[in-house]
């Protein structure tokens, strides 16, 4: 598959954006600038990027608790994301959602989700909606290795395969569900094998190779658009940080993280771009600076924004009913 330079640069930009956003969030959280559960995507950038680059703007995604990367790759705005981490009024969810619930319907982002596995059925439902309306959109569904043991994985893939729905299931196999390694949470090594249960294509790719992800997903997306049904794609990768910020990661074998850091998807792509004259070092540096500025702009925006007025707490439960507040 020939991938255009434009596409490669776009992917590079997304990956760096994710990395820098996450690194900044990490520091801000450590400084106590905001609280809550924050699950970072560092190390896994090639997955979200390769997937979302295969999608159109009018396609949908469902995300997870570890959603920042997916949202950035699908076109989410760093400002509104950062403001949401801060719980500010200007955030994507007006401060009601926080890190685990960022959504942007205008970009087809059906939301991060705090329930492990919730996306499997929601993505399937979105794909049902697409099929019903007869458009050629698709929905990509992100989920972790450990979520493939959840009830919803089976429910969603079964329904999607039975009805040949346009959904692409993306398993981000980072080897762990919190502290439990894959070998201890399931009896298989390649999760793509589970495609057999639904008689759909299942494929395992190197999740740190953005080209491999992009190619596999592009093919699956093409199948889905043509009405040929879902695909299960497993991307093997690794999370560099703890499960959430604050996790002491006692469960990691010594040296494991270091091994994976050597497979960092970003320098790997940089090397390719330099070798193949996709970008010069100078251009890359410039792009990095631009992204640094974007991230700082996001932080400034978030910090300058106001916390939501408490009166807003009783809004948005329904489209038409505003609940009673504390004043009563």
């Amino acid at each position, binding site marked *: 598959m020939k991938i255009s330079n434009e596409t490669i640069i776009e992917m590079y930009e997304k990956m760096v954006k994710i990395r820098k956003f996450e690194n900044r969030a990490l520091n801000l959280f450590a400084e106590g600038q905001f609280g809550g559960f924050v699950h970072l995507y560092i190390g896994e950038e090639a997955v979200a990027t390769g997937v979302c680059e295969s999608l159109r703007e009018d396609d949908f995604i469902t995300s997870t608790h570890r959603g920042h990367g997916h949202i950035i790759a699908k076109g989410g705005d760093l400002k509104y994301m950062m403001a949401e981490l801060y719980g500010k009024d200007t955030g994507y969810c007006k401060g009601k*959602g926080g890190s685990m619930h960022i959504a942007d*319907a205008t970009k087809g982002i059906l939301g991060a989700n705090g*329930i492990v596995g*919730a996306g499997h059925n*929601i993505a399937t439902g979105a794909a049902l*909606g697409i099929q019903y309306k007869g458009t050629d959109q698709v929905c990509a569904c992100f989920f972790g290795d450990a979520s493939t043991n959840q009830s919803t994985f089976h429910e969603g893939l*079964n329904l999607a395969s039975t009805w040949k729905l346009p959904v692409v299931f993306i398993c981000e196999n980072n080897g762990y569900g919190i502290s439990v390694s894959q070998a201890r949470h399931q009896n298989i090594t390649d999760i793509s094998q589970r495609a057999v249960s639904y008689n759909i294509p299942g494929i395992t790719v190197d999740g740190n190779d953005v080209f491999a992800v992009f190619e596999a997903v592009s093919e699956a997306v093409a199948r889905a658009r043509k009405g040929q049904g879902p695909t299960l794609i497993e991307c093997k990768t690794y999370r560099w940080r703890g499960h959430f910020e604050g996790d002491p990661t006692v469960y990691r074998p010594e040296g494991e993280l270091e091994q994976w850091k050597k497979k960092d998807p970003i320098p790997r792509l940089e090397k390719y771009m330099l070798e193949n004259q996709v970008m010069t070092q100078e251009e890359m540096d410039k792009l990095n600076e631009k992204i640094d500025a974007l991230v700082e702009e996001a932080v400034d925006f978030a910090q300058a924004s106001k916390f939501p007025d408490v009166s807003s707490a009783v809004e948005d*439960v329904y*489209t038409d009913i505003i609940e009673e507040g504390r004043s009563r």
Partner: protein
Amino acid sequence: MRELTYGQGIKEGMRIKMLENPDVFIFGEDVGLFGGCFGVTAGLFEEFGEKRVRDTPISEGAIIGAAVGAAAVGLRPIPELMFVDFATVGMDQLVNQAAKMRYMFGGKLKLPMVVRLPSGGGVAAAAQHSQSLEAWFTHVPGLKVVYPSNAQDAIGLMLSAIDDDNPVIYLENKTLYAVASQVEDEVKPIPLGKANIKREGSDVTIITYGKQVYDSLKAAEMLEKDGIDVEVVDLRSLYPLDTEAIFESVKKTHKVVIVSEEAKRGSYAGEVAAIIADECFYECDAPIKRVCALNTPIPFSGNLEAYVLPNADDVVQAVKSLF
């Protein structure tokens, strides 16, 4: 006027909206050719085809979850579960997704969906097919909950539920499906949150809904002979709740009995009692009574089930205890 069964009423409500709006569609277990476990969707498959009346695999989580996804991308699905008891399997999709998504996302999404859930006992279906779980759903901010007692209300509430931009839990009592009643030729939508005074009276207010409307009306007739003049309020909509109608009635009668088929402990009937005990306390001159099912699972054997479920005699007894 014409006569329709409760089941036909539910169907008519769906059918009207399906004819009107191509985004409305039905799916669930055996809703197609089979016509639904209780026959409610019979004929719709033939009329609208498989695209709009679709059989699903047995996975309640997928049924509700797919409804959430489809609603999120702009459709108006009507998922059906065969029995409300199976909501336990799709509870996450209902409670953590459908009910909360709009709020979590800062109001930037709407989720129009009507979840049909056949409820209640009385058909010897035993503990896992006979529950009344309205108390769970009414406890969940983000859900609306309706429970019609007759064909006309079934239609009117269905029309409003489908038009609503929020997830609506539409509870149906399975012993009522075959019960016929008079229906206007053209039924108008019944706004959610409007109770219906089924019988006016001045001595005591019975607040109820679903099947217990009939038990309560029967009890009212029996009590009339004893000179007790009973008002019967059919809530129809459990959330939003028509507190105005309730308070007005209590202000008139000063005595309340709440009747439902739920296990008494933790019942929705208790919520209604609690609201009155707070906001209408000084209007009450006697204990606020609840007549509900006993605090047991529903047993299979007919005589046990009859004993566990509330009936008109139980209502009569409760009312009399207030005089």
